[in-house]
């Protein structure tokens, strides 16, 4: 109970810090820009307006959320370490795991606020253009939240032991590979199959394929959370798919946070 109370107080403080760093204002600005942009794009596009608005907006929610997850996630932990505010904090009866969990929860609340605000903007835009607010679009926005929850956990993990710049690059790398790992696996397998005898890929194909397989299984399968096309085509996902992906994201974020705690436990604060 004490652990949860500590984490809760740190989460509140971290959310408040993010507010004072003006991150929510950036979110609000993004929401307004998104509304204007999606309507304009719908007007200009040769495709169906509703199709364009839905597919583009879900991607924009994901990308702007990525920006917040990386910069707020890395920034807040790094700021505590570099500005040494962590010295007084950890000298209180606060465990290092409660500190990290609190930071993560506070920032996750910020991400949730971002997704809710931008999704609401999307619904307003859809209503304004006489589009339909269907289950697939709600499912797509919901899955973006879980995707960002995983990226945020990585941002916290990297920021516990490396600089802000390196942590941001690594977190962005995870996002990219997470979205492409399935594609990479398919491409490697395809190239291996069609490679000629005596070529590098024919000789080492299995090894390269195993590396691609390792990346695919170890790193998060973020492509599973990108359902903007299904949303645009109004294809409802099976609820088991949505639930299993939520459980996968939750579990994955927990494992990454546990790793962060392990690294953080032995860290010296000079």
């Amino acid at each position: 109970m004490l652990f949860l109370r500590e984490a809760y107080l740190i989460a509140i403080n971290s959310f408040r810090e993010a507010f004072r760093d003006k991150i929510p204002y950036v979110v609000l600005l993004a929401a307004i820009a998104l509304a204007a942009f999606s309507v304009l794009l719908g007007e200009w596009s040769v495709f169906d307006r509703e199709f364009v608005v839905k597919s583009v907006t879900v991607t924009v929610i994901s990308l702007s959320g990525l920006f917040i997850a990386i910069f707020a996630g890395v920034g807040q932990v790094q700021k505590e370490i570099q500005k040494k505010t962590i010295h007084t904090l950890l000298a209180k009866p606060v465990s290092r795991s409660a500190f990290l969990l609190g930071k993560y929860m506070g920032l996750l609340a910020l991400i949730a606020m971002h997704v809710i605000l931008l999704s609401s903007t999307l619904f307003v835009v859809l209503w304004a253009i006489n589009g339909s607010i269907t289950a697939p679009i709600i499912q797509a926005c919901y899955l973006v939240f879980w995707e960002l929850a995983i990226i945020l956990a990585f941002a916290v993990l990297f920021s516990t032991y490396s600089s802000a710049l390196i942590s941001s690059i690594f977190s962005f790398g995870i996002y990219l590979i997470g979205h492409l790992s399935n594609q990479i696996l398919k491409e490697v397998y395809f190239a291996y199959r069609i490679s000629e005898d005596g070529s590098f890929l024919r000789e080492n194909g299995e090894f390269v394929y195993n590396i691609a397989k390792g990346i695919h299984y170890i790193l998060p399968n973020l492509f599973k959370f990108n359902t903007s096309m299904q949303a645009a085509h109004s294809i409802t996902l099976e609820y088991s798919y949505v639930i299993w992906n939520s459980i996968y994201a939750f579990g994955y974020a927990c494992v990454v946070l546990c790793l962060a705690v392990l690294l953080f436990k032995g860290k010296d604060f000079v």
Partner: protein
Amino acid sequence: MSEIQNAIEIKDLHKTYRQGFWLSKKKSLFGISLEVKKGEIFGFIGPNGAGKSTTIKVLTGLLRKDSGEVFILGKEPSKTESRIGLGYLPEQPYFYDSLSGYELLKFYGGLSGLKGKLLEERIHWALKIVNADADWIYRRLRTYSKGMQQRVGLAQAILHKPELLILDEPMSGLDPLGRRDVREAILTLNKEGSTVFYSSHILSDVEAISHRVAMIIDGKISHTGTLEEITKQTGWNSLEDVLAKEVSRVVP
């Protein structure tokens, strides 16, 4: 179970830093041993870079020891419980500058297990002790002078009336009035039952308020005892003379 007699116990403590890109080693503490009894005001003195802050950071759990034994109120610093009865003021207290002093104290008070009316009462009590019960406490911390920050820093350390108070250079950078206030706060808190362990460069203050003193030079404890014991042992008149002699011995 027998009651713990020592607020701090350090036996043969070693600490090495790893620094730079290649993580090269730099040893900072070479097997120091120290005991601080409950109820004492204990001064920890030494030149810059001698290992005072390193020792304090090991005690507060911010640094992990290489080897040796360290106990804070009978518990190891790596355990969260060791900090329940601990109050700590770092050498240069850094706080969330977007908060007001009052918000900061509420936050830290909450982390120390205080809430509701008790927390409000303790904030006013602590502010009175550090002579900071004024309107500026509701201003943002980024507008504070060094003296104001030090007072807020001390207030956050004493909010929960800790059994053991560890202060790293609490008087540095303060004007004479600020120094007097900190000195008086230390004496008041000690009278109310807190053990105080503090490091300082200002030897006249150390001589004035400490029950016992330890001197650390180059990562090793060179003298421990009351002021009389140390001056008698060394044949010098003041701590300043003893320190100067010890430093010149190490750095000829």
